[in-house]
């Protein structure tokens, strides 16, 4: 991550200046206050605040992904602001829009479709395999927590009854989260079963050793 330093009479002014210099929005950066309300020059100088602003460098993959999602949203007639970052091999994009409900859809289906199409378009324009994680107003994070909750509930059921339990059908991404949630559970194990849209996870007790 890169950073720049800036100063101003107030913290807000310093932030404002830094953002203008970087051409970024506040939610794309992290601000650290170095000195608040200190004399900038030793004796006489006016009081002011010095800050350091951390920002992600936009990689070509990230720039391309942002452009594709912005274009898709425009074609869907949704006014939106897309910000993103790249961590390891994954591109994370966050969409803030005037119609989050429409973009998320029933059980997140529209969001899933949007992410899938954006990934396909991105891969075919850049000719490489890329992982794109699209989020709209923190939906994915809340959804991941819900899935982990369901996984723990089903694991408890297996513990109590000793019988195997089948979860409702899940897409590959959700199955991955579900598997991860119970990976370290000593009592139960998870396995995918079924084909296509009906593919899901079966939780069962670990075999006695």
């Amino acid at each position, binding site marked *: 991550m890169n950073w720049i330093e800036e100063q101003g009479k107030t913290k807000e002014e310093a932030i404002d200046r830094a953002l203008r210099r970087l051409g970024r929005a506040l939610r794309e950066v992290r601000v650290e206050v170095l000195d608040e309300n200190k004399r900038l020059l030793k004796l006489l100088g006016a009081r002011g605040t010095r800050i350091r602003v951390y920002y992600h460098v936009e990689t070509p993959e990230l720039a391309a992904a942002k452009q*594709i999602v912005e*274009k*898709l949203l425009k*074609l*869907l*007639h949704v006014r939106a602001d897309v910000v993103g970052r790249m961590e390891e091999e994954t591109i994370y994009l966050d969409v803030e829009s005037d*119609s989050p409900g*429409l*973009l998320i*859809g029933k059980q997140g*289906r*529209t969001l*899933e*479709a*949007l992410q*899938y*199409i954006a990934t*396909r*378009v991105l891969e*075919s*324009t850049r000719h490489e395999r890329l992982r794109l994680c699209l989020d709209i107003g923190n939906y994915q994070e809340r959804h991941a927590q819900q899935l982990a909750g369901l996984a723990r509930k089903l694991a408890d059921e297996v513990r109590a009854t000793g019988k195997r339990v089948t979860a409702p059908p899940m897409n590959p991404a959700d199955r991955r989260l579900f598997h991860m949630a119970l990976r370290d559970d000593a009592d139960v194990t998870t396995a995918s079963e079924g084909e*296509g*849209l009906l593919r899901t996870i079966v939780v069962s007790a670990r075999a006695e050793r």
Partner: protein
Amino acid sequence: MKELIEYIVSSLVDKPDEVVVREVQGERTMVIELKVAREDLGKVIGKQGRTARAMRTLLNAAATKINKRAVLEIIE
């Protein structure tokens, strides 16, 4: 509606020049007809129809906004 499908499909196929999208307006429903080169058919349908399904989902979201229903027909 038409532009959305045009943009997605043209980005996915090998022969974007052969992409033809037509919009047929009904009272409640609009039909989007899509034609691509024979060898690109697999790309717009996707594994187990996932790409076509995702396009239909997006189309429905866009149509909901204007109180309509939209159907994507891929012509073979």
